[in-house]
């Protein structure tokens, strides 16, 4: 038996008022009519808790777009889970927040696009910036812990000092500065988002300095294309967390749907625990036995788990290959070529389409 998962990322809906061009949702967005019902989500939470899940990350899209969010929050909290609301902040009024807090939200993660209103609204595709300031104020007044999450890329990386200042003013307890990971919409927009090495070096120095003085916990997610070794993606396939998509598809990570022939299963057809422990999609890359060289004999496999399966699939066509961002991968030269070509050419950032 595999170890039990700690976290469930519940993508309650793909509907969202924002249109960020780096959205981690898949290009094929789930339609509203295909979303799990309230009772189905309740059952997913029950099954997840029985399986060992302790953290419920209620995300989307925008989870506030689900009218039954208070009900789902209450259900997850009632199971003894830690309830993390992952939101754009749009539509978060004082009354809604008070209700969600009373029903058991433990923590709020609020997305911010940039430190400057005009730039932030341009990236979000809508006038979102002022709503986020309001949301942060309401979260602070409610006494809830706040994490501000900012996806970094070519268009805002130079503003990272101002972004850190903004998060301080918003009263954040934690700040996640996450360089864009290239899946879904971000992969489509990669040429418009990839930063230069110089941008990353400067931002890295700013972040290191801020960590020394800030009262916030600052988490910095690396830009893996520029690194010599891959990220420890999900801390291993099917190891700690699972994702349930709005339509009930059960995934080892939010991007895993891109891998052809993975055989993704749906919680409408098979119990969650069986999918976690026994499905082909979850066992395909669990542990170390699936690895080829250079990963198989590499000491770093215990550190990075061979990197990301989705990235290996997207860039090499085979999910069992070493993540090609690794300097030990025979395909690393292709990543260097992408960096050389795509960080020097201006490209248009295409907005995410709204889910229907």
């Amino acid at each position: 038996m595999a170890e039990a998962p700690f976290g469930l990322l519940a993508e309650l809906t793909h509907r969202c008022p924002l249109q960020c061009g780096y959205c981690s949702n898949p290009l094929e967005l789930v339609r509203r009519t295909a979303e799990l019902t309230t009772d189905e989500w309740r059952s997913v939470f029950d099954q997840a808790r029985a399986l060992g899940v302790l953290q419920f990350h209620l995300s989307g899209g925008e989870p506030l777009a689900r009218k039954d969010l208070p009900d789902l929050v209450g259900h997850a909290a009632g199971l003894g889970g830690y309830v993390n609301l992952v939101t754009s902040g749009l539509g978060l009024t004082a009354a809604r927040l008070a209700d969600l807090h009373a029903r058991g939200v433990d923590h709020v993660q609020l997305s911010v696009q940039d430190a400057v209103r005009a730039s932030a609204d341009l990236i979000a595709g809508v006038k979102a910036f002022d709503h986020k300031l309001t949301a942060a104020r309401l979260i602070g007044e409610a006494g809830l812990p706040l994490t501000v999450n900012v996806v970094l890329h070519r268009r805002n990386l130079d503003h990272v000092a101002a972004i850190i200042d903004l998060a301080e003013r918003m009263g954040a307890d934690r700040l996640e500065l996450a360089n864009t990971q290239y899946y879904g919409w971000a992969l489509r927009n990669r040429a418009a988002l990839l930063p230069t090495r110089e941008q990353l070096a400067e931002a890295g120095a700013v972040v290191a300095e801020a960590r020394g003085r800030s009262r916030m916990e600052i988490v910095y997610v690396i830009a893996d294309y520029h690194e010599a070794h891959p990220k420890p993606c999900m801390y291993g396939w099917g190891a700690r967390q699972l994702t349930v998509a709005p339509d009930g598809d059960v995934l080892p990570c939010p991007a895993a749907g891109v891998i052809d022939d993975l055989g993704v299963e749906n919680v409408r057809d098979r119990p969650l625990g069986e999918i976690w422990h026994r499905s082909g999609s979850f066992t395909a890359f669990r542990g170390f036995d699936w690895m080829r060289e250079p990963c198989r004999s590499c000491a770093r496999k215990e550190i990075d788990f061979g990197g990301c399966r989705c990235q290996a699939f997207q860039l090499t066509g085979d999910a069992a290959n070493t993540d090609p961002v690794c300097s030990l991968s025979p395909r690393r030269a292709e990543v260097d070529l992408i960096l050389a070509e795509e960080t020097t050419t201006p490209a248009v950032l295409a907005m995410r389409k709204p889910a229907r």
Partner: protein
Amino acid sequence: MTDLDATPRLGKGVKTSYDQTRESHVVLFPEGVLVLNDTAAAVVGLCDGRTTITGIAARLAEDFDGVRPEDVAELVARLVARRVVDTDG
């Protein structure tokens, strides 16, 4: 090493719970879970913002053998590093 007169308390947004699946006490915080052994669970349970490290060690000595204040201080320091416990203020 945490000062023996410090009075640790749980950090903002940190919850404790008992997990039947793992048959363990756990600490839940914004982006993580700590599965605690019995001693650690007892220490966390006494992080109430009033009891000193020395006091926690004395209470633990009632149930566990060979508990030294220095060991409690070291464990608390590890919990502080994970932002699960605060000792300032």
